[in-house]
């Protein structure tokens, strides 16, 4: 629907700029973006910004309460765990495991999905139909079950579960990209470009890719939130990050037996996971709205 405009001004800004303008207007999305960027920066700089060594065990300071309680120390804002390791440093370090690995997982799945989705979308007939059916199978296996199978075959570990999550995310990427390409191929400008003598590669790189990147971004943000939740859940179950690694989900399961003594050591990592996922979802939702509004204007 086109809106009524008082002045006939031409709106010739680049799509990216228009998108940013619509995005900036949403306060919740901006909050999400700021949180997202800070998580991203922390996960990159984690080794340099921890106030203490996250693996250093201080025998004199076991189970120190957070600094806001009377017995806490200001040098240890969130207190220490049962081995005397600083919880704040562990949480900062954990950002690169939970948040950083989620980004890597999604980037990997997106690249593979783009490749396979493009192959599926550009091909026709039996090849594409067989491909689709295999994907249907992959879509039906629950991600946790897939992770269990992979852990059973190659053993537990953060990297191994990353593969599992990548595999679990892949089918929805391929499906989404394939459908997006299908939709694009029906457009008249694709036919016109083909009549000009463009081959498949030209059509894909010059027309399809620029037109589906918005959908790709939305898919990717949705996938990041799933990936964070999955990494944390697998860490919590003990399949993912192993003992000394301070992945947030693993930290929750570590301090689960201390829940009476130190409830904050369960509450804070959970809150971090929640905030990280929320920031991603806010950005995704904001992008969706902004894209919709840009298309309408």
């Amino acid at each position, binding site marked *: *629907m086109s809106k009524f405009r008082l002045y006939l001004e031409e709106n010739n800004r680049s799509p990216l700029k228009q998108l940013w303008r619509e995005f900036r207007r949403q306060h919740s999305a901006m909050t999400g973006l700021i949180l997202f960027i800070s998580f991203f920066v922390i996960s990159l700089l984690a080794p340099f910004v921890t106030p203490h060594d996250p693996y250093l065990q201080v025998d004199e300071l076991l189970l120190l309460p957070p600094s806001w309680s009377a017995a806490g120390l200001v040098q240890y804002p969130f207190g220490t765990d049962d081995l005397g390791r600083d919880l704040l440093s562990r949480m900062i370090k954990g950002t690169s495991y939970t948040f950083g690995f989620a980004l890597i997982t999604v980037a990997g799945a997106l690249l593979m999905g783009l490749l396979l989705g493009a192959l599926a979308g550009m091909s026709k007939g039996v090849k594409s139909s067989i491909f689709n*059916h*295999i994907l*249907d*199978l992959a*879509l*039906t*296996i*629950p*991600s*946790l*079950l897939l992770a*269990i*199978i992979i*852990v*059973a*075959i190659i053993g537990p570990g953060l990297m191994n579960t990353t593969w599992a999550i990548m595999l679990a995310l892949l089918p929805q990427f391929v499906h989404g990209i394939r459908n997006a390409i299908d939709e694009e191929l029906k457009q008249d400008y694709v036919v016109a470009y083909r009549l000009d003598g463009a081959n498949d590669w030209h059509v894909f790189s010059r027309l399809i890719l620029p037109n589906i990147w918005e959908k790709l971004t939305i898919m990717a943000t949705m996938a990041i*939130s799933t990936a964070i*939740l999955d990494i*944390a*859940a697998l860490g*919590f*179950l*003990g*399949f993912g990050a192993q003992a000394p690694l301070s992945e947030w*989900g693993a930290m*929750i399961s570590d301090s*689960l037996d201390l*829940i009476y003594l130190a*409830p904050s050591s*369960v*509450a804070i990592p*959970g809150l971090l*996971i*929640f905030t990280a*996922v*929320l920031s991603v*979802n*806010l950005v995704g*939702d904001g992008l969706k709205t902004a894209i919709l509004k840009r298309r309408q204007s």
Partner: protein
Amino acid sequence: MTRYLLRRLFLMAFVFLALSLLAFSLSYLFPGDIVQNLSGLRQIDDSQRQQLISYYQLDHNILQQYLAFLTRIAHGDWGQSFASQQPLLQEIQLLLPATLELASYALLLSFVIGIPLGIVAAFKPDSFVGKSISAIAMVGYSLPIFWWGLLLIMFFSLALGLLPSAGRIGVLYEIPHSSGFMLYDILLADIDYRSEALYNALQHLLLPTIVLATFPTTVMISFVRDAMLNVWEQNYIKTARAKGLNRGQVLYRHGLRNALLPVIRQIGLQFSTLITLAMLTEVIFSWPGIGRWLIDSIYQRNYPAIQAGLLVISTMVITINMLTEILHAFFNPLARRG
């Protein structure tokens, strides 16, 4: 419709073939002795090993081994569990109803709450109510389920002592096993403490159901909201309004029917996520279902159990996927094409 059904059935056969191939290859991929992985027996002496090798046709080529595997699965010989040395199929039959019970109540709850809230949120998307519903949906969508479950246990079970934190029913009540669905069994059972048992079982059910329903409910809210907003923009809605129907009539006759149609399909798509979440919920609430059993299996390196769990859960998810697709096509002729 017949053509559509045939095509779907063919597709389903293909998917099951691929699934059986995957499950078959697992016993070779898992670490350890292949005969042990196939049979689930811990101690195997030499004469027994010879017998098992010929039974599993391990001395023949891979195709015959696969055919033997299919025959065994069809005859219900799924091997034994490493942990309990019981037949796997029997164990699964005891565990599956618990999971299905929990998942179906959670799904039901997500419909009952999610659909009306989604419609309300779509009706006035920019009002305070609409915005707060969307905000709640966003928060629920972002909650890590295991942490959310722990929080509820900490609050309702540990701090307030109102609700039990583990299991399906108190140990005081003995319910004769008939179907495996707890509430149904209690109602069916001939016992004089039926109402107390029912109350106790409902108390046990409440927290896990809420935890498991959180994610599907929020998905349902945003899905119904988006679908409603989309339908509300369509020309046939304007036509209906122009004809003089009032808002309620338009909503019921044209809005809801079109907006809720994709919801059927959404159930099938969300079911695999629901199973993942159910597995986590079962671990947190010590719910004796198939999810917790599978996660225990990996701690115990119980490979035959993982293979059987894959077969059962995937079959369930595929079947439900297909059923919802067919239902969707049944109600929506447009979906039968393509």
